[in-house]
């Protein structure tokens, strides 16, 4: 374990909930006075090292998506620092982010440029992507003509074939038919054994235990526990049960 690839230092993120559209308009010019807020992340700090596989568990609204969005560079923190040292591929919104009038091939290049890749490198991985996505002649058709399954396959193929340093995976991901799903799972496992850092988000304890030795448990934007998956899941399970018990009372 060398140096950390992802560092969160006291990261906080607050969403401002505007009362109505008027308040929103006003906020363009003047800072709103004590607005209602939702603290999505509260003073979160952790380090993830190269080659680690880390699970992130927590209930809905715990801040998991916000955290992932920050790692992928879509959202930004209000306070604190985030350092991500490498290419990030995200298996989150696979059908989004294509330019619909461009062909599949042109979209591969677009994605590549966004990630800061060079022409030569993209050319190298282009064939792998096309083969993996099983698009055949469709690769030179505009993406708007694709079915949603095809778009997903292309999105997946691009993200796993750019040789990412960090791979963000949401378990709720559904990719095409059963055989392609299996292919995806195998590919993710292959990437993991190649020493890529994987962040895995899930509700299911079993799949986290299977993939990640370490897990982070988020509750209401705060890191409750960060350690070996078995221990993390125990804390999570205990909390769930205590909540259930409370409800019964």
């Amino acid at each position: 374990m060398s140096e950390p690839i992802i560092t969160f230092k006291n990261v906080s993120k607050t969403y401002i909930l505007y009362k109505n559209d008027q308040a929103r308009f006003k906020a363009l010019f003047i800072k709103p006075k004590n607005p209602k807020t939702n603290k999505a992340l509260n003073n979160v700090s952790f380090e993830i090292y190269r080659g680690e596989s880390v699970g992130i568990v927590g209930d809905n609204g715990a801040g998991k998506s916000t955290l992932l969005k920050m790692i992928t560079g879509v959202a930004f923190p209000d306070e604190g620092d985030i350092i991500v040292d490498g290419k990030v591929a995200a298996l989150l919104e696979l059908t989004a982010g294509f330019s619909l009038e461009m062909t599949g091939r042109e979209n591969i290049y677009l994605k590549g440029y966004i990630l800061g890749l060079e022409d030569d490198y993209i050319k190298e991985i282009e064939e792998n992507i096309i083969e993996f996505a099983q698009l055949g002649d469709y690769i030179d058709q505009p993406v708007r003509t694709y079915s949603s399954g095809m778009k997903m396959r292309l999105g997946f193929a691009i993200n796993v074939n750019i040789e990412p340093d960090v791979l963000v995976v949401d378990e709720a991901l559904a990719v095409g038919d059963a055989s392609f799903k299996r292919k995806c799972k195998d590919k993710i496992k292959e990437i993991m054994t190649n020493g890529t850092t994987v962040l895995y988000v899930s509700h299911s304890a079993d799949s986290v235990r299977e993939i990640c030795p370490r897990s982070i448990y988020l509750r209401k934007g705060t890191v409750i526990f960060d350690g070996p998956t078995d221990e993390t899941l125990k804390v999570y399970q205990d909390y769930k049960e205590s909540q259930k018990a409370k409800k019964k009372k």
Partner: protein
Amino acid sequence: MFTSIFQEHRGFGKQIFLLAKNELIKTYKGAVIGPLWSVVKPAFTIFVYWFAFSVGIKALKAVKVHLNGMEHAAFSIDFFTFMFIGIVPWFFIQDQIVQGAKTLRNNRQFITKVKFPVSTILTYTGLSRLFVHIFLVAIMYVYVLFRIGPSWYNLQFFLYCPLMFIFFLALSWSTAPMSAFSKDFESLIVSVMSGVFWLSGIMYDSYSFTGGLKIAMLLNPINFFANGYRNCFLYHRAFFTYKTELVIFLVEFLAVFFLGIFNYNRLRKKLPDVL
């Protein structure tokens, strides 16, 4: 302060052109005459204005508007030519202001779903409108060649056109994030723009006023470009002939440019949360 917008464009030049091309395809795909629509609509608009002012209003006789403001020019020219040359940049300006403000909201999938150099969205959509504009200018220039003839002053187009593109692009650095933030702001721009046409010297000569009104006309940057295009193709006047106008415009240009950078940087990181 400069960093974000310019950094986002670095190494993305080729993609911007490709995306601009695709933006054009998106606009005109599925239509039988395709890109010709970019000519038909303005042509019809020009016809309507020409009809209303040259035929309709003249028949009324009561309204004698400032159409004769051309008389102090070196030579007198018909109203149609005067209007045509001024309205071509107007089509671009109107489109760029109204559509430019809506651009980020319309392309939200690039902001909320994936990491994307957001300011380049404004550049490539603006560029696709510039292509349409250049197409229109080419048609206009054919008319100008027959009606007025060529002149070295025509070359000033290559000064005015890029300047116009940058000015209204920089304006959208402010308006687009603000419109994404608040739909009311977007509606405000759309409403205001429907009236701005009549406040600008497209149908009349903005130089033909005196006193406070003349100064008010100089403050409107749209006049700078409408008159600028007429400087190139009609008046055959150098761009620095009216120094006051030029200086006022340059001050406005700097203000819009830096305000744009300021507003973009201020709102960029909030965009994924509000869209």
